[in-house]
C-alpha cells in the first residue's frame, strides 16, 4: 500500500519537474524526494498520527533530503524543494473546504478549513525549521562561508 503510494507520488513529482523545468539530470533525485515525503506522510497517517503532524513530518523529510541533495550536487536547494513539497500541499483539504462550504454546514467547514490551514502552516514551519538548521550547520562547519547560500 505504502509502496504503491510511493510509486504514484514518484511519477506525480516527475510531472511537476517537467512543468517547472528541473534540469534533466536532477529529475530523478527530485522525484525521489517527493515520493519519500509523500510516503512518510502516508505512513504516519497509517499510524493514526494527525494529518497536520503527518504533513509537517513529511515536509521535514522533503526539506532534509533536499538540503542533502543540494550539497551533494552543488545546486540550489530550491530545485529539489519545490517539486518535492508539492504533493504535500493540501489540495484535497482545499477542495473539501470548498465542497462543505457549498452544503452550508459551517461547523464542518470550519473544521476542515482549520485543518487545511494548519497543514499549509505545518509545511511552512517544516521548511523554516529545516532551512534554518541547515544554515546553522553550514555556519558551524564552514564559518568563513557566510555569503554562499545554497
Amino acid at each position, binding site marked *: 500500500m505504502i509502496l504503491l503510494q510511493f510509486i504514484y507520488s514518484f511519477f506525480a513529482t516527475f510531472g511537476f519537474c517537467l*512543468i517547472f*523545468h528541473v534540469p534533466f539530470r536532477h529529475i530523478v533525485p527530485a522525484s525521489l524526494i517527493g515520493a519519500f515525503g509523500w510516503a512518510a506522510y502516508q505512513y504516519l497517517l497509517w499510524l493514526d498520527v494527525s494529518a497536520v503532524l503527518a504533513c509537517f513530518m513529511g515536509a521535514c523529510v522533503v526539506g532534509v533530503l533536499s538540503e542533502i541533495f543540494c550539497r551533494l550536487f552543488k545546486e540550489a536547494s530550491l530545485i529539489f524543494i519545490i517539486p518535492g513539497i508539492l504533493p504535500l500541499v493540501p489540495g*484535497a483539504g482545499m477542495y473539501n473546504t470548498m465542497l462543505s462550504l457549498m452544503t452550508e454546514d459551517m461547523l464542518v467547514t470550519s473544521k476542515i478549513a482549520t485543518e487545511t490551514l494548519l497543514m499549509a502552516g505545518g509545511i511552512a514551519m517544516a521548511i523554516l525549521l529545516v532551512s534554518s538548521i541547515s544554515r546553522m550547520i553550514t555556519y558551524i562547519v564552514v564559518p568563513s562561508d557566510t*555569503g554562499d547560500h545554497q
Partner: protein
Amino acid sequence: MINPLQKKILMLALLAGEILLKSGSEIYRVEDTVIKLCKAFRIPYAEVFATTTGIFISLDSGDEALPHTLIRRIKGTGTDLAKISAINSISRELAFSDTEETGSLIEESIRRLEAIRQAPPYRLPVQMLGAAMIASFFTLMLGGVWQDFACALLIGVCSYGFSLFLQHIKLNPYIRYFMACALTAFLSILALRFGPGENLNAIIIGGIMIFLPGLAITNAVRDSLAGDLLAGSARALDAALIAATIAAGVGMVLALWVLAGGVLR
C-alpha cells in the same frame, strides 16, 4: 562618472538578477548573486535591493566620481528551475575565478547569460505529459481507480493546455487559474456523467494539483526567514489568492452543476 567597463559589469549583474527573479528565485539569492558578481569583477562598493517586482543596484567606483544606480522593474514571473540552476553555477564559477582578462570575461559572461535567458523550457508535449502525469497519479494517490486515471490524464492535458493558452494571450494570472480550474471541474463532471469516471473528487483534486501555489508557499517562508519580509508577505498573499481563485473556479462549476440537478459525490 562610472567607466564603460563598470557599466558593463552593472548590466551583467542586473541581467543575472532579472533572470533569477523571473524564474521564481528567492530574494536573497538574487541579492547574493548580484553582489557576488560585482565582487568577482572588483567593484569596491556595490549595494543591491530586490523585491518581487524590481531590482535596485548601486555601484561606486570608490574615488571622487559620482555613484551609479540602476533600477529595473520586473514584470511577469514564472517558474524555471533550470535557469536558477544555470545562473547559480555561473556565479559560483565567476566568484572563484581569477579575473585577469576582465574585459573578455565580462563579454563572455553576458553572452552566456543571454543564452540562459533565451533558453526555452521543456517542449510543449513534454510539459503536457508532465501535467497529465500530475493529474492522473494524484487521482490514484487519492483513491481513484484506473478509469479515473484515464479521465484525469486527458483532463490534465486539456486544462494545462488551456492555461498555457490563456498565459499566451496575457490574461491576468488569477483569472487564468480561475478559468483553468473551472474547466477542470467541468470536464471532470463530463467524465463522470458521460465517461467512465468513478470518483469525481479524486479526478478534480488531481486536476487542480497542477495549479497549486507550491512555489509561492515555499518562497514566502524562505524569503521571510532570510529577512525579506516585504517579498515574503507579498508571496504569502499571492499563495492565498491563488488558492482562493482555484477554489472559486471549481466551486462555481460545481454549484452550477448542483443547480442543474446534478449530484455531488
